């Protein structure tokens, strides 16, 4: 991966009149990384991307790319290119001229220009489309042309603003894989903005989860799922059962927690937790197993009653109400339920290593 601080965002804030869109964000992105900014709409992810592109200037802080400060450099002089949400293909010129658009500014021979345009079209598998116009292309094709137009400039960083949002589900999944493969083969740093957690999880090397202008956690996808550091991240990424809890005592990494309706347990903490933190404990649905009778192999066992089941092909989701817990616990299983059905009594087993202590803020 090389340079770990290829893109360096330091203490960047952006205010629009009274609204703080980006609030003191610092993050480093490595060279060649596929980095995603994930968050609900209005969380500031697009503003941060536009700051990287040079369309917005930060109110505070600075941005550097490849060891040079670009904070005050306008978009046209930055080593970045962008794929817009609606692709922004110029409607008055054909595909070839669209792709050439940015090369016209570079002093290169017409042979080299043609060569690069052809290579770019080949890369996005749209050879032979040179003379088409934007309105003669499908959504997926426009998306590829936008990619080709940006990549033909050989940017140091490619910025993508929800580029798959307008495509239908099947095409979107295809493009996710294609985009990921493309990024690996060209080796350019990608910064990808999305509100779709599944998309961010399947494509990225690392994901930054944003909310209300702040970055809450930056982790590889699996870590984000397995070790969410706060309530927003845990709740935003995948399904999770959250239980009210209180810290009893802390001894290094071992934290004693009183979990609502389950009792007091000593758990490993994965983030820095202090005595005064408000916490919940979280358990992913896949970490709870269900059986019709008691077993004594596991750390925690509770009795409950099935309130609902839903079948999703390879997985079945089961909702179990447990005395003392307000919301039914949700669990997923790949096995058949062996005689268990709605209203059956059942036993849930949870292993201590699967319980996470999550800060409320």
């Amino acid at each position: 991966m090389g340079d770990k601080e290829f893109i360096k965002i330091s203490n960047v804030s952006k205010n629009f009149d009274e609204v703080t869109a980006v609030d003191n964000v610092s993050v480093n992105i490595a060279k060649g990384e596929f980095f995603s900014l994930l968050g609900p709409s209005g969380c500031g992810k697009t503003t941060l991307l536009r700051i990287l592109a040079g369309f917005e200037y930060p109110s505070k802080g600075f941005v550097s790319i490849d060891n040079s400060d670009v904070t005050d450099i306008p978009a046209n002089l930055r080593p970045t290119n962008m794929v817009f949400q609606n692709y922004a293909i110029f409607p008055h010129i054909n595909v070839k001229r669209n792709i050439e658009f940015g090369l016209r500014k570079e002093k290169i021979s017409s042979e080299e220009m043609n060569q690069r345009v052809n290579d770019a079209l080949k890369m996005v598998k749209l050879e032979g489309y040179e003379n088409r116009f934007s309105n003669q292309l499908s959504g997926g094709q426009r998306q590829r042309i936008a990619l080709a137009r940006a990549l033909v400039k050989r940017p140091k960083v490619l910025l993508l603003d929800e580029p798959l949002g307008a495509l239908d589900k099947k095409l979107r999944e295809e493009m996710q894989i294609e985009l990921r493969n493309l990024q690996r083969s060209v080796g350019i740093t990608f910064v990808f903005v999305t509100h779709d957690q599944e998309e961010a999880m399947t494509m990225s090397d690392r994901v930054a989860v944003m909310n209300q202008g702040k970055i809450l956690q930056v982790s590889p996808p699996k870590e984000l799922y397995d070790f969410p550091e706060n309530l927003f991240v845990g709740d935003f990424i995948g399904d999770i059962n959250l239980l009210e809890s209180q810290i009893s005592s802390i001894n290094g990494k071992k934290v004693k927690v009183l979990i609502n309706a389950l009792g007091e347990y000593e758990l490993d903490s994965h983030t820095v937790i202090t005595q005064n933190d408000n916490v919940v404990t979280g358990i992913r649905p896949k970490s709870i197993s269900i059986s019709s009778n008691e077993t004594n192999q596991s750390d925690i066992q509770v009795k409950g009653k099935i309130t609902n089941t839903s079948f999703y092909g390879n997985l079945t989701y089961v909702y179990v109400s447990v005395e003392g817990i307000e919301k039914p616990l949700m669990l997923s299983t790949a096995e058949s339920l062996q005689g268990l059905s709605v209203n059956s009594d059942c036993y849930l087993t949870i292993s201590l290593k699967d319980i996470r202590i999550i800060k409320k803020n």
Partner: protein
Amino acid sequence: MYKKNNTLLIYSIIYFAFLYIPVMLLPIFSFNDAIHMVFPLKGFTFKWYDQMIHSSRLHKALMNSIKVGLVASIFSTFIALLAAKAFTRYKVKFHQLSYGAILLPFVIPEIIIAVALIVLWTGMGLQLGLIPVTIAHILFCTPFCLLILISRMEGFDKNLEEAAMDLGENAWGTFWRVTFPLVLPAVIASLLLSFVISFDEFILAFFLSSSDQTLPMYMWGQMRFPKKLPHVLALGAVIIVVTSLIVIISYWLRNIGNPSSKKNNIGGI
């Protein structure tokens, strides 16, 4: 299914008849071999056209009108283009106020503008003539041009301009390579409309032109002599034909320049 509604059809026919029958009388009487505009028609003749072609005062007035119209339409379109860009792309101070100020000549009676300008112009000790007429026409045409251009500027995707910047173009290059081609149909429409407005404008020209007559003033002047009327009709007929041609050509040009109007629209936005 609805029953065909004949009332609407009849209404449309009456509407178009009301609009165009008076206009159609001009070409008809321009070929009529009589001085007075009364039915029945006498005989067919080209002599009014011949008279029109050989009137040197008419030629001079026509050239004056064309000169004023060209200069006024180019300047007012250019001013309106810059203003439209500012109003739609930048944060303009006193936005509403300055927008209103540009559009004001719309609602001020022309004769007031004419009187104001003649007082100002002669007060400064300058000679009346085609120059003040042209300036007055620029003032008068700019609001029309601004309305045409602003609606087009608002209508197109601002991301396109950002994409151009992102691909390395500066503000000037972005304007000429992206913005201008995309608003070109509106620019042509603005040029044509302001030319036509200037071409048939009478009051401002009447006050400010002194002895340099424009075409409408010439026509008005000829109305006083019954013998001169028929060749004004011939002139009117020619103007109708030329204006219709301009409109048809501009419509055709717009379709050529705009690929989205083609039929083979696959994805479509």
